[in-house]
C-alpha cells in the first residue's frame, strides 16, 4: 500500500532515485515473497498434520520443534578436532561456532570443486577443439567416463586422498568435469559461424579467434550448465562427507541417522536447502553481472 501511494504521488513529478531503486528491487522482492509463502505453506501443512496427530513427532517432528531448539541441535555439530581421542571435550568451538564451521567447510568444498571443475573443464574442452591431437588422445576416454555416476568415484577419492577436504573436493570436481567438458565442446561447435567469419575477415589468428570470439561466445551456455550442476555438486559433497571424509553437513546427517535423531536430520536439511538456495542466487547474480548482454529471461532460467 505504502509503495503504491508513493508511486501515485511521484508520477506527477520526475521519478526520484528512490523510486528507481524500489522499481529495481520490486521483481526480486516479489519472487522472494513467493518463496516465503511457498515454504510457509508447506510448513503449515506439516504443522497441521502434527496437530491432528497424523505426523508422529518422534519420526516427523514438525518445523517448530526442530527449528525451535537450535541450541540443542547445534551441540551435535562437531568439528573433527573434538572427536579426536585425548582432546578436551570442553575445549574447541562452542556449538554455534561448530555449526558455522561445519557449514563453512561444506560450502568451501563445493566452491573449490566447482571452481576447479569450471576452469579445468573449460580449458580441456577448448584444448580439444584447438588441437586435434588432444582430441584424439582424450575425448574417447572422457566420453567413456562421462556416464559413470559420481558415487562410483567415491572409493577412488578415498584411495587417492584419504580423508579430509581433498576427497570431497575431488568428488565435486569429478561430478562436474565430464559433463562440463562435453558441454564446452558442444558450445564451441554451436558458436554462430558469422562471428567466426567476421573475425577471420578482419585477419584474426586462430588463437585470437579462440580467445576473443569463442571464449566469450560460449560463456553464457557454460554458466547455465554450471548452475544446473550446482545441486549435483551439493549432493556429491554430502555423500562424500557422510562416508567419513571428516566433518561437514553430510557427516551430521549420518550422525543423526545413526543416533536416530529425526529433528537433527530435518534441521540439517533446512540448512542444506538454504545454502543451495543462496548459492543458486549468487550464481544467478554473477551470471547477470558477467552476461549483461543477454536479454532478461533468455539464458537466466529465471
Amino acid at each position, binding site marked *: 500500500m505504502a509503495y503504491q501511494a508513493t508511486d501515485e504521488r511521484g508520477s506527477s513529478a520526475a521519478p526520484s532515485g528512490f523510486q528507481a531503486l524500489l522499481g529495481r528491487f520490486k521483481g526480486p522482492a516479489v519472487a522472494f515473497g513467493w518463496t516465503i509463502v511457498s515454504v510457509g505453506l508447506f510448513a503449515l501443512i506439516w504443522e497441521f498434520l502434527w496437530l491432528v496427530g497424523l505426523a508422529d513427532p518422534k519420526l516427523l517432528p514438525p518445523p517448530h520443534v526442530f527449528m525451535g531448539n537450535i541450541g540443542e541441535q547445534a551441540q551435535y555439530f562437531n568439528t573433527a578436532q573434538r572427536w579426536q581421542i585425548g582432546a578436551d571435550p570442553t575445549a574447541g568451538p562452542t556449538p554455534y561456532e561448530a555449526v558455522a564451521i561445519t557449514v563453512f567447510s561444506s560450502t568451501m568444498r563445493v566452491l573449490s570443486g566447482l571452481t576447479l571443475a569450471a576452469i579445468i573443464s573449460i580449458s580441456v574442452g577448448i584444448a580439444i577443439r584447438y588441437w586435434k591431437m588432444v582430441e584424439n588422445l582424450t575425448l574417447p576416454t572422457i566420453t567413456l567416463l562421462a556416464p559413470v555416476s559420481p558415487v562410483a568415484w567415491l572409493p577412488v577419492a578415498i584411495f587417492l586422498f584419504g580423508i579430509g577436504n581433498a576427497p570431497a573436493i575431488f568428488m565435486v570436481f569429478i561430478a562436474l568435469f565430464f559433463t562440463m567438458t562435453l558441454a564446452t565442446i558442444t558450445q564451441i561447435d554451436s558458436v*554462430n559461424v*558469422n*562471428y567466426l*567469419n*567476421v*573475425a*577471420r*575477415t*578482419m*585477419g*584474426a*589468428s586462430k588463437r*585470437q579467434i579462440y580467445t*576473443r*570470439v569463442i571464449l*566469450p*561466445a560460449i560463456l553464457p551456455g557454460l554458466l547455465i550448465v554450471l548452475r544446473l550442476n550446482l545441486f549435483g555438486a551439493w549432493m556429491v559433497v554430502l555423500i562424500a562427507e557422510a562416508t567419513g571424509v571428516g566433518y561437514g553437513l553430510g557427516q551430521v546427517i549420518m550422525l543423526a541417522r545413526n543416533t536416530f535423531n529425526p529433528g537433527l536430520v530435518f534441521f540439517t536439511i533446512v540448512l542444506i536447502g538454504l545454502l543451495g538456495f543462496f548459492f543458486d542466487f549468487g550464481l544467478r547474480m554473477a551470471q547477470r553481472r558477467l*552476461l*549483461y*548482454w*543477454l*536479454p532478461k529471461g533468455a539464458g537466466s532460467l529465471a
Partner: protein
Amino acid sequence: MSISVSCRNVGKTWAAGTPRAHEALRGVDLDVADGEFIVLLGPSGCGKSTLLYLVAGLEEATSGEILSYDTPVSGPAPDRSLIFQETSLFPWLSVWQNVTFGLSLGDMPAAERRKIAEEVLTRVGLRAAIDKRPHELSGGMRQRVAVARALAMEPKVLLMDEPFAALDVQTRAKMQDFLLDIWRGSGASVLFVTHHIDEAVALADQVVVFTSRPGQIKEIVPVDLPRPRDPFAPEAQDLRRHLTAILSAEVDKAFAEQEQEAAS
C-alpha cells in the same frame, strides 16, 4: 583503371567429390573496376552469397581463380570487408569495441582506437551510440554499426550480402542514400547482393543478373543514370521492367527445378 576484383571462370561446388555435391556457381567471369558499385541480382539460392564468400576468401573456389588488384585471393584479408546478411555484431562488446575489433587484433592502443571509432561512427550517424551495447540498438542501427566496423578497416572492397533485407521500405531507402554517401567518400569498390530490383536500380553502376542454380551470369546491365537518381524517371522505369522480365524467367526456372528435385 585498375581492377579491384576479377573473377575468371569461377565455379563452386559445395561438398565436391561427395554424394552430396552441390554445384552453386559455374563459369563466372566478372571484373569490378576500382571504385565501382556492382549489384548482384538473382533468384534465391543461385549462389550470390557463395560468390561473396569466395571473393572474401572465406571459401575456396573449386574452379577458376579470383584476383584482387592482380593478387590471387587465397584467404581473408582486412582490405576486403564482408557485411553479412544477418547482424553479426559481438553482443559482449560495446559499439565502439565492435567497430574497432579488427584494429584491436593488432597492437593499436585503446585511446587511438576509440578516436577512430568516434570518427567512423560519426560518418554513419551513430556517434551518440558509441558506448551502447548491440542489444540496445534497433536492427537498422546495428547494420549501420556493421558498416562502420567494415569502414574502420579502410577496405578497398566492400562486400555486402543483403545488408538491408530485414529493414522496412522507408528505412531501407534511407540506408541506401547513406550507403551511397559512404561509398563516394571512401572510394571503395562495392559488391552488393540484393533481390530487390528497386534497390539494384537505385544503387548500381552495373547490375549483374544471375541465372538460377548453378548460378551463371545471365546478363550485365549497366545503369547509366545520374545520381541522385529519380526512381520515377522513365529510364529507371524501363530498366526495372527489363530486369523484372529477365529475373522472373529465372525464378520460374528455379521453382520448376526445385519442384523436380523434391519429387525425385
